[in-house]
């Protein structure tokens, strides 16, 4: 393989990896906050993709401009799902872990069914019609499609924004404190219920941003979330549950490994590299790369 071909592979992997990172960050945020794995995370992303697609087809709003709208709508949806489903699952005393898995899995199945019902199982795409569609950036012999470059930049900005939010604002500090000790925050007057709701909103908004940028270059169908969700679980576990930074870093690693595997093995086996890497690391470091035991 020539140097420029290798560079091309790494660059593509990096661009995809940043988006994987953004998807995983939302999942990790919720997990760190309340120990719940959201099995509907992929379906949240799928809904955001349809929302972006709908904005484009019905209202002629370009995905680039629809992005903040979609993120805001997803925030509301996430907070609503917390209030409507997760809050009740958290109250359950027996089989708490199973209840949380199946409450969110049931929700995921419901959303998939509803999407099939409303949007049909057909594959849809925005294709070359958007502002960025069909354009390619050439950089030192490496070709990068603009939608992917845009997605990567948005992911970096969103992660930077989340980082600042968590470090610099009262909400962020409340979030961090609730992650540390749910009982103690009540003593200083933080309503953990509200923090959880905002956390779910934020997690959904982040995956919503990822869905919006993905919809500019990826096919949209009711099952699209499931494939990305598996990668997101692996990414979160690889980075270490609850570590937001770990999830983002692991996303980049996953993107790079996937891109390299796709070249080395037959393309249909491209996920094998991620799986193998994940198992290798998890057996050596059961808490993940950046997780604490």
């Amino acid at each position: 393989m020539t140097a420029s071909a290798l560079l091309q592979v790494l660059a593509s992997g990096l661009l995809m990896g940043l988006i994987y990172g953004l998807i995983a960050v939302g999942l990790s945020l919720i997990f760190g906050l309340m120990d719940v794995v959201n099995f509907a995370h992929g379906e949240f992303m799928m809904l955001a993709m349809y929302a972006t697609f709908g904005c484009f087809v019905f209202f002629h709003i370009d995905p680039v401009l629809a992005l903040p709208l979609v993120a805001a709508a997803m925030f509301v949806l996430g907070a609503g799902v917390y209030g409507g489903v997760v809050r009740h699952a958290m109250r359950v005393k027996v089989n708490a872990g199973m209840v949380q898995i199946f409450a969110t899995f049931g929700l995921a199945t419901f959303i998939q069914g509803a999407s099939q019902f409303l949007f049909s199982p057909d594959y849809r795409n925005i294709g070359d019609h958007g502002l960025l569609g069909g354009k390619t950036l050439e950089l030192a012999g490496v070709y990068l499609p603009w939608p992917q470059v845009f997605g990567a930049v948005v992911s970096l900005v969103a992660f930077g924004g989340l980082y600042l939010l968590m470090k610099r604002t009262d909400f962020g500090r409340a979030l961090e404190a609730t992650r540390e000790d749910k009982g103690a925050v009540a003593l200083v007057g933080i309503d953990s219920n509200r923090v959880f709701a905002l956390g779910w909103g934020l997690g959904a908004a982040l995956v919503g941003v990822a869905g919006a940028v993905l919809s500019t270059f990826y096919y949209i169908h009711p099952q699209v979330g499931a494939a990305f969700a598996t990668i997101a679980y692996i990414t979160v576990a690889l980075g270490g549950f609850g570590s937001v930074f770990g999830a983002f870093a692991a996303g980049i690693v996953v993107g790079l490994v996937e891109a390299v595997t796709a070249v080395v093995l037959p393309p249909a086996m491209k996920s094998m590299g991620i799986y193998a890497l994940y198992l290798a690391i998890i057996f050596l470091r059961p808490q993940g790369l950046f997780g604490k035991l």
Partner: protein
Amino acid sequence: MQTSPSAPAATPSAANDAVRSFGVHRRGQLLIALLLFVLIALLPLVVQNAYLRNVLVLTLLYAALAQAWNILGGYCGQISLGHALYFGVGAYAVSKLYVAFGVLPWFGMLVGGGLAALLALVLGYGCFRLKGHYFSIATIVIAEMGLLLAHNWEWLGAASGIQWPFGPDSWATLQFARDKTPYVYFALGLLAVTWFACWLIEDSRWGYWWRAVKDNPDAAESLGVTVLPSKMAAAAISAFFTAVGGGFYAAFVSYVDPDSVMQFRFSLLIVLPVVLGGIGTLWGPILGAAILIPLTEFSRSYLGGSGSGLDLMIYGGLVMAVALLKPEGLIRLLPSRFSRKKEAAR
């Protein structure tokens, strides 16, 4: 059986009574099971409709699979979300052995079960150090690797799978083209064996160890329970029965391909009846399957035919509702003899 030091009122004779009533209770369970299985065996006489018999086979099969999962997940507390792997191993072992080498499915099932048990031991050795969600996600990933391998392994037919040849109806090859009733009896037999295994386990040393590992692994370890071997034993037994179920399924549909037996969705479908019915109980998985599988099948045939997604909406909504409203499982709605954990023995 030791009486707890905090309850001095429990005299030895009271403890003996408790043990005796526990024995009666256990024999009662066996009797109820016998009665139930005989009743189910009579069902095909009443149910003549081929579609309904098909649903009956699937219900019994899922009840057996759920019971098999319950051994590892319910009694030992290890939430595996990758049991599709063992199901697939069983289905592929039986199909490949029969189609390529003419090995009868009966032996194929034992081979598949053995392979799956061995695999569970190897994987368990690596995975059981992982806790909680880390363990569950590792099981998902390993099952996904299996799915990917099956998709790309030419020797196993890759994505198109293995099609069984047409042959005469026979118990030897487990092929029944015209009348599917024998499948009802095989599935019932499988359920009876798995149920009986669970019944034996409940009062065995392994059973007590597994519940100890589930409740508090550190305390169990300090009391001399060897945690890792306990988990591995549970995983092996659970995988064995799951793979036998997979082998039966392959014979039943005369066909196996990666997507129909090894998808992640399938791992969850095995667990759902347990959660719905009651996790870690003898009757929960059967009750859960009896409700869930007919509901899935009917909603699929009446609502989901055109891929409208209505069946998924109902299914998902129901799962959510049960998880939230009846987290300990529907079995708790029945009289306590079905659901009672073993207070009597403590």
